[in-house]
């Protein structure tokens, strides 16, 4: 008996009792669709996290002062540290000190009575590479701006639209008004960057506008000299560890202190978040695997019943020349069709379900070919594993006994 005939005959049997077939498949459908949803949402959140860090620049090191220990004035990071590191430490590709001017500033919008909350950050020309900013119009802040303490700034395209109503060359040279506890500051726009942040993270919702200005100007306006941190991109990411210890020892020597600074490695953060995520995925997948196991047992149970019900048919088939192997193949095929169809439906429901769940938790689900092929493959494998025992029982039936069965 060839495979095609076997398939046709099995399909006919499976479809002849639709309600039973559906109920049998239900376990597999639930199992497979949960696996699909978990994988799609897991991949989606991983992609979202990676994208979040991409805008920050992966491999970026951020040097900051530890906050838990007794801090003295001499320990604070200042521009002197920046110049010292630039001078003394090799292996740095880009370096940008940051000074957080104000997290509580407001930008005056087109309609003079409206304002929008903004974060104002002072930095240097290299901040463009740290922040992965793309300049659409004009230029980024330059080292010259820092040196001359120019009253200039770089804003995002979204901010330009809100403040000037348009976003093109004509905005360059115009002034924006920033209100803060320091009063109103007027800054000349020299460049517009692209706002790549499409995800609605808490940070971007809280600070819709982001203004970047020369660090020297920023310190002057907001009267301060303590850096929030220094962001560094190493020349060679492989030697990041060596660079980190060089930076820490240079700072300790410079400040004549020890263990006052730490370095945050964005790659490590991505890794640790991903590993937490994968533990969660493994755990939920384990639960899904149990539901697949239960589904498989359901299939086995119904196949056992089917074999008993169709004892007579098996006897007839054997009498007219079906070999044990033909009967075995037929029942295994039926089990595979049951679970395979369950897998396909599970895939469909999982696909739909992952978009629904994605909407609820605001994550774009990511379908992977591996998950799709895996889901269908696993469900078929369940068919084989749980179909073998009933099929062997069917194949081993004695034709005379089977023919006598009523």
């Amino acid at each position: 008996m060839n495979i095609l005939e076997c398939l046709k005959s099995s399909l006919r049997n499976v479809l002849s009792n639709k309600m039973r077939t559906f109920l049998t498949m239900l376990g597999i459908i639930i199992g497979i669709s949960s696996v699909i949803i978990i994988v799609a949402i897991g991949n989606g959140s991983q992609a979202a996290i990676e994208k979040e860090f991409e805008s920050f620049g992966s491999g970026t090191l951020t040097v900051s002062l530890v906050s838990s220990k007794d801090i003295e004035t001499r320990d604070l990071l200042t521009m002197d540290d920046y110049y010292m590191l630039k001078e003394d430490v090799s292996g740095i590709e880009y370096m940008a000190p940051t000074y957080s001017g104000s997290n509580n500033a407001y930008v005056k919008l087109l309609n003079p009575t409206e304002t929008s909350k903004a974060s104002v950050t002072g930095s240097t020309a290299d901040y463009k590479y740290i922040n992965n900013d793309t300049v659409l119009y004009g230029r980024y802040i330059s080292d010259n701006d820092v040196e001359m303490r120019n009253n200039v700034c770089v804003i995002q395209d979204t901010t330009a639209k809100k403040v000037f109503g348009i976003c093109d060359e004509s905005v360059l040279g115009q002034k924006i008004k920033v209100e803060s506890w320091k009063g109103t500051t007027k800054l000349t726009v020299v460049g517009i960057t692209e706002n790549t942040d499409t995800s609605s993270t808490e940070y971007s919702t809280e600070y819709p506008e982001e203004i970047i200005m020369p660090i020297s100007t920023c310190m002057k306006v907001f009267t301060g000299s303590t850096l929030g941190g220094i962001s560094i991109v190493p020349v060679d990411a492989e030697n990041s560890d060596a660079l980190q210890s060089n930076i820490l020892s240079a700072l300790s020597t410079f400040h004549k202190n020890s263990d006052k600074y730490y370095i945050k490695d964005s790659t490590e953060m991505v890794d640790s978040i991903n590993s937490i995520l994968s533990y969660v995925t493994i755990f939920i997948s384990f639960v899904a695997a149990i539901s697949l196991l239960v589904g498989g047992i359901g299939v086995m149970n119904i196949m056992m019943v089917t074999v008993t019900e169709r004892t007579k048919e098996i006897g007839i088939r054997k009498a007219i020349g079906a070999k044990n192997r033909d009967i075995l193949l037929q029942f295994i095929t039926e089990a595979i069709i049951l679970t395979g169809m369950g897998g396909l439906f599970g895939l469909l429901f999982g696909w739909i379900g992952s978009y629904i769940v994605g909407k609820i938790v605001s994550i774009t689900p990511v379908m992977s070919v591996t998950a799709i092929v895996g889901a269908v493959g696993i469900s078929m494998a369940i068919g084989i594993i749980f179909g073998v025992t009933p099929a062997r029982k069917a194949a081993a039936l004695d034709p005379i006994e089977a023919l006598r069965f009523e």
Partner: protein
Amino acid sequence: MPLLKLENIYKKYNQGELAVMALKDINLTIEEGEFVSIMGTSGSGKSTMMNILGCLDRPTEGAYYLEGEDVAKFRDSRLADIRNKKIGFVFQSFNLLPKLSALENVELPMVYAGAKRKLREETAMEALTKVGLGERVRHKPNELSGGQRQRVAIARALVNDPSILMADEPTGNLDSRSTVEIMEIFQRLNDEGVTVIMVTHEPDVAQFTKRIVLFKDGQIINDHPVENRTLSGGEKA
């Protein structure tokens, strides 16, 4: 060489503690083209005989030569092959598969023989026409009368062009008119050269055949040709 030859066949059944000897020292030779009735009361061993002749079962002892081969020691899969190609079965309760159409039922032995679809359909149609059922071939068994169902079963038994047609009480579930029709079909097939072996307990039905082998208590007690054979149209020879 005879078509089939049984030599010192014994069949023992173990029913718990009790061993039952269903067949004792059976010796039987059937030539090609014969039309044999196996008769006997229930428990006489005729059904066991049928199962062994039909290669559904193996004897406990003895040799069974089918076309010169001793099939008594064959493995399951070789026996299945013989049932498929050399033997055609007709049962009392028809034993058609209810979900398949008449045509598909007839095709089934060819499916197991590995024949292509087109050849299967043509051969099955031919077999159905031969037994006088050229129409209604797309109907399911439960839409056919008893006589029609048995014709489908005969067509199925014939489709792989077997050496022997085995019939187990083929008229047991039929009315007298259908019985005559079915027996006439067997006679016609026998005239065309098909060897027919039939188990029955009805003497009237046995009168249609050419030879009667009588069983009692697992042994052959009588083996004689049929006199005054009933022929087609109900005439006596």
